[in-house]
């Protein structure tokens, strides 16, 4: 049962003129868009584009990125993947602005792997770190401008006039003297064969002339996503495909000793085959439902990890529990590495009028994105491999596949459908991706394989946001102002947690949010006591900041209390002279109708309080205020006010949606979430044991976007980290005792 884009891929492969990658891409996308594509874009064009490639400028190969179709629609290959954050729309706005084409006329898809799509300053291609718009902004503007220049050139040729007599209107080249116009779509076949102008001298618009950047342009993917037409990896299907499900070893590092009922499972209805994989057994069937039933029915004897396994991968001990691990982190001794120091913290603490010590902790959390991971792998007759999978970094994944399969990267075509949520889930995590299994199964069966991890398998293998136990010491002067702050975090960061061994340098993602705080505390020391976590670790929306700003900002409130200071006044004091953050703090306070800590009685008779949290994540600045009450011993968040300063923005509507989403995830973490491990296994294997925020607990969210004009920062992650501390600080005020850990559902606030 084949349909849609995949039928056309097969046809394309047989059509010699379309053998270029661009031809391939066009066919695969064109069918989805239902458009008839004229065949322009011959392979020679890429070679020519290569000639003009300047190492100083990334992402200048216009024909690789853009196809302007006869119907004047624009197909853009985006270097960044869409997973809900609105990046496809933002890219259309940015390119469209300089190209002079309405973003509405864009069709955007994730570009294939390939150097030409690496536009980030880092020289990597990832969708993460809230980098897409800030790193994509300059190259995508340039790309649009280059394409426009080529269209003008083509227009000049076609009209037989000088290019200086021409200008553009959205979608058209216009001859200013005569008013004659030519559609971009009628010029593209000539334009895309022209040499690419020098990116160093191409003129960009003056921002005051922007038509779409800065506007709440409608998202391009909303209708498809409201009608079930949007397709994710899990929805992919190719001719001759089989379905697969797996049962993983209960703990990382274990291997199959034997299967007690393999024969019976093979005889179950619909089962095609059973496969022994590293750390998993797979069942292949004509239907996924049968495969899943088979995988669940397997009775596997798992063997403990052999000696030496820990050299190559993480090994989960059978007695591991997250609770005792927390105790271990709190009591561990051993080497401490300084990540950020200023002044002489030890001496300042000794001389301080008052010293406050407290231990704070975070929890492991799951990504819990709604789309369970899957991968579809197909070996083709010519030995090439096509693979569809959720991913935030196509080139990195392709390189890994090349290593695993022994195939040359050029023989692997990676397809990156829309992501059903990601939040950091779809990076290259050693044991947390289904594609290595799908590839093995496709090889073993000689048929294309779509492997879906059930929700239960996903919760078993997800890479977790790290857990940290932080020992704080704060010193106050005689006036109650902080003069010293020390934070020693016992933790392992997500980046150093990617491999089996720690790297040489400190992992900045372990401590960000403890480091990088803007408060003027003259003596400070932020350090890590590295302790390896046996769990797989990963990036989770706002990474280190997701927990560290909670830890820091709640301790800061505790310090304020100790010094007899109002937490808002104390922050103002510590930020004096910092115009950007003073403005931001004022903005959120104004948004909330003025600072009112409480406790106070609300109109409905409930006792409420408000708390503040601030964070400086991913190049942006955030400040939030939460208003809470206690209902039946549990926290109810009524209102969130958040001010975000990302420097400047592209689409205010998308920024507001992202703030809402980040608020929801921040609340979910602080109120409810915790991946609990017992006996080396996660206690929750589905949402029933791992509750996440639901609609009835979503507060009203009030947003203020502050455009300070500072260097552009991120948007997707930055609104999250200020939320947990704002809530916890409000709760502490309300209940009259400090809250030092998440989630709050673990605490009973029954009075």
């Amino acid at each position, binding site marked *: 049962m084949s349909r849609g884009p995949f039928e056309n891929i097969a046809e394309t492969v047989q059509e010699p003129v379309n053998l270029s990658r661009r031809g391939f891409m066009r066919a695969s996308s064109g069918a989805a868009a239902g458009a008839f594509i004229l065949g322009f874009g011959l392979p020679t064009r890429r070679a020519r584009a290569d000639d003009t490639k300047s190492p100083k400028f990334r992402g200048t190969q216009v024909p690789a990125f853009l196809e302007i179709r006869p119907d004047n629609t624009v197909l853009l290959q985006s270097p960044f993947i869409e997973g809900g954050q609105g990046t496809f729309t933002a890219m259309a706005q940015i390119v469209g602005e300089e190209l002079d084409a309405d973003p509405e006329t864009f069709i955007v898809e994730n570009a294939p792997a390939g150097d030409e799509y690496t536009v980030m300053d880092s020289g990597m291609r990832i969708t993460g770190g809230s980098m897409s718009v800030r790193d994509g902004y300059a190259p995508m503007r340039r790309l649009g401008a280059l394409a426009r220049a080529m269209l003008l050139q083509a227009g000049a040729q076609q009209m037989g006039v000088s290019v200086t007599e021409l200008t553009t209107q959205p979608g058209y080249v216009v001859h200013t003297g005569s008013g004659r116009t030519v559609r971009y779509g009628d010029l593209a076949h000539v334009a895309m064969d022209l040499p690419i102008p020098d990116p160093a001298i191409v003129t960009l618009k003056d921002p005051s002339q922007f038509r779409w950047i800065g506007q709440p342009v409608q*998202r391009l*993917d909303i209708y498809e*996503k409201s009608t*079930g037409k*949007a397709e994710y990896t899990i929805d992919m299907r190719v001719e001759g495909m089989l379905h697969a499900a797996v049962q993983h070893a209960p703990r990382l590092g274990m291997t199959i000793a034997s299967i007690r009922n393999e024969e019976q499972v093979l005889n179950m209805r619909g089962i095609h085959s059973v496969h022994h994989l590293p750390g998993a057994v797979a069942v292949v069937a004509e*239907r996924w439902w049968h495969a899943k039933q088979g995988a669940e029915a397997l009775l596997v004897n798992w063997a403990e990890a052999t000696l030496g396994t820990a050299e190559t991968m993480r090994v989960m001990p059978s007695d591991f529990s997250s609770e005792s691990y927390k105790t271990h982190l709190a009591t561990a001794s051993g080497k401490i590495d300084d990540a950020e120091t200023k002044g002489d913290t030890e001496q300042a603490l000794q001389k301080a009028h008052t010293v406050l010590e407290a231990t704070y902790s975070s929890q492991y959390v799951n990504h819990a994105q*709604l789309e369970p991971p899957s991968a579809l792998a197909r070996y083709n007759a010519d030995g090439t491999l096509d693979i569809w999978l959720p991913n935030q970094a196509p080139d990195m994944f392709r390189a890994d596949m090349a290593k695993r399969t022994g195939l040359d990267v050029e023989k692997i075509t990676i397809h990156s459908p829309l992501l059903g949520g990601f939040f950091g889930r779809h990076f290259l995590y050693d044991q947390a991706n289904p594609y290595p299994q799908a590839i093995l199964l496709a090889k073993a069966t000689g048929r294309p394989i779509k492997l879906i991890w*059930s929700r239960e398998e996903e919760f078993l293998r997800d890479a977790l946001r790290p857990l940290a136990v932080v020992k704080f010491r704060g010193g106050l002067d005689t006036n109650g102002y902080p003069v010293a702050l020390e934070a020693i975090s016992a933790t392992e960061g997500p980046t150093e947690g990617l491999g089996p061994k720690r790297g040489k340098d400190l992992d900045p993602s372990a401590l960000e949010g403890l480091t990088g705080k803007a408060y003027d505390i003259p003596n400070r020391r932020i350090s890590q006591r590295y302790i390896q976590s046996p769990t797989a670790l990963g990036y989770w929306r706002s990474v280190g900041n997701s927990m560290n700003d909670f830890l820091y900002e709640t301790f800061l409130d505790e310090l304020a209390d100790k010094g007899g200071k109002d937490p808002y006044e104390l922050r103002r004091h510590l930020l004096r002279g910092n115009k950007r953050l003073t403005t931001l703090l004022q903005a959120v306070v104004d948004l909330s109708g003025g600072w009112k800590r409480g406790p106070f009685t609300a109109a409905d008779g409930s006792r409420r309080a408000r708390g503040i949290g601030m964070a400086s994540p991913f190049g942006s600045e955030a400040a939030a205020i939460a208003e809470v009450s206690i209902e039946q011993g549990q926290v109810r968040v009524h209102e969130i006010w958040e001010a975000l300063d990302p420097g400047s923005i592209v689409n205010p509507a998308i920024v507001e949606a992202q703030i809402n989403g980040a608020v929801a995830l921040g609340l979910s973490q602080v109120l409810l979430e915790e991946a609990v491990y017992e006996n080396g296994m996660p206690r929750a294997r*589905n949402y029933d044991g791992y509750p996440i925020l*639901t609609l009835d607990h979503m507060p009203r969210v009030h947003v203020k976007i502050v455009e300070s004009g500072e260097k552009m920062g991120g948007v997707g992650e930055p609104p999250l980290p200020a939320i947990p501390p704002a809530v916890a600080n409000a709760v502490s005020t309300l209940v009259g005792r400090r809250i030092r850990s998440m989630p709050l559902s673990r605490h009973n606030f029954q009075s």
Partner: protein
Amino acid sequence: MDLTINGVPHQLEIEPETPLLWALRDDLAMTGTKYGCGLAQCGACTVLVNGQAVRSCVTPIERVAGASVLTIEAIEQDDLGKRVVSAWVKHQVPQCGYCQSGQVMAAVSLLKQVPHPTDDDINAAMLNLCRCGTYNAIRAAIHDLASSPENKGA
């Protein structure tokens, strides 16, 4: 097994206990209905059976034989469904979109039964999970629909 999906009769040679979700996705290639949990927890698989929201991941096809099943693929053939979709577009509800087929189906079911839902009605009916946190946009879209002139009510 005879099923009527979106007004179209289908004959499927599969076990009667097969969950409707997988019959839709794997046998009928209707992938608009999503798998999220398989345990009636998330709502991504919501379809309408005789106008009522049902979790298709835990609904055996034998239970819907003879019933009228409406999936997201045909949602715009339903008058109310069409209006719900427009409201979703107007309020720019989806982010990743993965939960939204289910959200739209749940909203249609709610509005069919309660044309003017209060916040409490919405809280009680819209139990579908959304990891992207589109809840406020969902609530706004439903209120907007309830107050629109086309919404005659029951």
